């Protein structure tokens, strides 16, 4: 039996029908292990299908609405289970290598439950006594509210302009951020996009790190704001992020396969119009941030996808040399992990945003970055380490552009 996760009233009724918890809760001395609990996804980014509740064991799966093939994004909340131990059972392919993300503060902060807690896609969790709500997810969800919390610290700054790219089909604003000196054009343009695949939330922490680096009051931040204008579109599929969609392989094609012909998504159409106009012929670096698949092999390694154009491929090597040399965060980029064109899944096909950007006449580097969900070559990917990696990317952008500008001067 599957339930539409958007209809959680029915879900609660189901839990009650199977467990009989409400009746138990109304008895004079309800036992903690018989107290009612509810599971829902009625919050930004929420996604779950409850297949079955049997005693303290809950069988779950991701809601794949609108998706062409199975994917693994899920995010749900359990309430009223304080003091109780419940077991959650997923298909083993839908739980990552460090277990589920767990939040005790309504999604403000997250920790991995740990690999040891998971067996064949099932994990048990003992809810702390007195805890009202605990959230679980395949990752560490990042929605619009997360970015708002970050921006609160920077609102009012003259070098940060908050704008709108367009409206979504559901009427939401697609946020566009610009960082730099608003009174004059800097010699370089840097565009950073995220969540073309709305489920890929860990990439948002990387984006926030790049944004933080661009705004930082340190040598790299000051240099960047003097020499480059930034354009960020943190949520290309804003509706998908807020509604908790998979987004990856969205029917008939997803947002990151929409950069061919006439776009079917208004966000993509808007970016294709806005970005070249904003860059205005200046040397452009375009960075599109993603997460790969959930686990195994290259999906547990940070990797850039090498552009097809040889000049841009060489510049990517230059960029990653600086990144490898100067990175200070816990996540380590190794140039040997750059996925060369024609290898792995990096095929020269049109459709992705970075392919489109690479073809713009002023682009010096257009590239996709894949940051794993939970494990990057043995390092834990989490809210902090992913953000720190973003900071490292910002510093590497400074080094790369400084080197590029010197080379241009020498050439002249």
């Amino acid at each position, binding site marked *: 039996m599957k339930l539409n996760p958007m209809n959680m009233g029915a879900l609660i009724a189901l839990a009650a029908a199977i467990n009989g918890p409400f009746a138990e809760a109304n008895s004079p001395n309800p036992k903690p292990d018989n107290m009612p609990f509810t599971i829902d996804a009625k919050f930004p980014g929420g996604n779950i299908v409850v297949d079955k509740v049997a005693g303290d064991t809950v069988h779950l799966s991701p809601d794949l609405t609108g998706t062409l093939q199975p994917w693994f994004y899920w995010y749900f909340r359990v309430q009223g289970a304080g003091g109780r131990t419940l077991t959650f059972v997923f298909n083993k392919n839908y739980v990552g290598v460090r277990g589920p993300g767990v939040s005790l503060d309504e999604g403000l902060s997250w920790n991995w439950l740990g690999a040891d807690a998971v067996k064949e896609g099932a994990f048990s969790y003992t809810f702390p006594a007195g805890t009202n709500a605990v959230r679980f997810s395949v990752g560490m969800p990042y929605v619009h509210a997360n970015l708002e919390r970050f921006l609160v610290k920077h609102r009012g700054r003259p070098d940060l302009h908050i704008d709108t790219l367009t409206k979504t089909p559901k009427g939401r604003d697609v946020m566009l951020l610009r960082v730099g000196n608003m009174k004059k054009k800097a010699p370089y343009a840097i565009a950073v996009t995220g969540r073309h695949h709305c489920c890929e939330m860990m990439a948002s922490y990387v984006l926030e790190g790049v944004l933080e680096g661009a705004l930082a009051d*340190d*040598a790299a931040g000051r240099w960047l704001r003097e020499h480059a204008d930034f354009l960020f579109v943190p949520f290309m599929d804003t509706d998908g992020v807020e509604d908790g969609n998979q987004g990856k392989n969205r029917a008939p094609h997803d947002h990151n396969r929409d950069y061919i012909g006439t776009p079917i998504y208004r966000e993509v159409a808007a970016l294709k119009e806005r970005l070249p106009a904003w860059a205005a012929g200046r040397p452009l670096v375009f960075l599109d941030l993603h997460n790969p698949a959930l686990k195994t092999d290259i999906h547990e390694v940070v990797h850039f996808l090498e552009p097809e154009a040889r000049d841009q491929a060489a510049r990517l090597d230059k960029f990653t040399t600086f990144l*490898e*040399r*100067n990175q*200070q*965060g*816990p996540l*380590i980029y*190794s140039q040997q992990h750059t996925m060369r064109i024609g290898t792995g899944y990096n095929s020269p096909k049109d459709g992705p945003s970075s392919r489109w950007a690479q073809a713009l006449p002023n682009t010096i580097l257009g590239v996709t970055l894949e940051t794993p969900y939970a494990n990057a*070559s*043995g*390092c834990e990917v989490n809210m902090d*380490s992913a953000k*720190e990696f973003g*900071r490292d990317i910002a510093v590497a952008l400074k080094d790369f552009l400084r080197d590029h500008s010197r080379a241009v001067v020498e050439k002249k």
Partner: protein
Amino acid sequence: MKRKSLFFAMLAVAGMGPAVRADYVTTFSVPPYVLDESVVGIDGWENRFPAKDDKAAYAARVVALRWNDYKPGLMLRGGSLKRTNFGAKVGDKQKVTVQLAVNFAEGRSGKALRVIFWPATFGEIFFDQGPGGGLGYQGDGTGTKGQGTIVVPKEVIRVNSFYTFTVLLDYSQQTYDITVTGVKKDGAPFRYSAAGVAFEPSKSKAAKIDSLLIVGTGYLGALSVESLAPIPAKTLP
């Protein structure tokens, strides 16, 4: 630790105080260290092996550490450094302080960082990325080539956070006391100490530190070698 307290008590009775003399101290923060420049060729630091490729140029550089409030540190990227001449030791006791931080370097499965004082009186301080590894020290007085003593297991280590190793060497006793402090992954304070550990056996009794080797990937925030000498109280300022 009792032995040390007794030592200081005896000094007090004798009208003498323990004096600290810096044989070598650095936080990599003042000249001749230069931000974003290699340490090789300055302040006695040398490449242990001839540079093989362009990576050697940035393998050991002073950087402002973002995660340490932009304080300078020596960032190692697979470097292999050597430093000799730690000054003339005074007295029979020395204190060595090393502040180091690690992350989990790509492709490493064994000792990813080693700080080796020579002759190997107390072995070395290391970060072992292998199974069952962590931050630890080597010398246990037996001379056996084991895995050393793991002080902070890998799963407890907070990456990019300094752990301070303090080693009090007693050359007359041929023993050392070691203390390790820092913060665990979960933010809780960490402290480890062991006292009266025997030097590694050697043909000649170790009497001073001659050289230091640093190999691997990680960060050094501070490094010092200090003589702890009993000096008559009247000579103290």
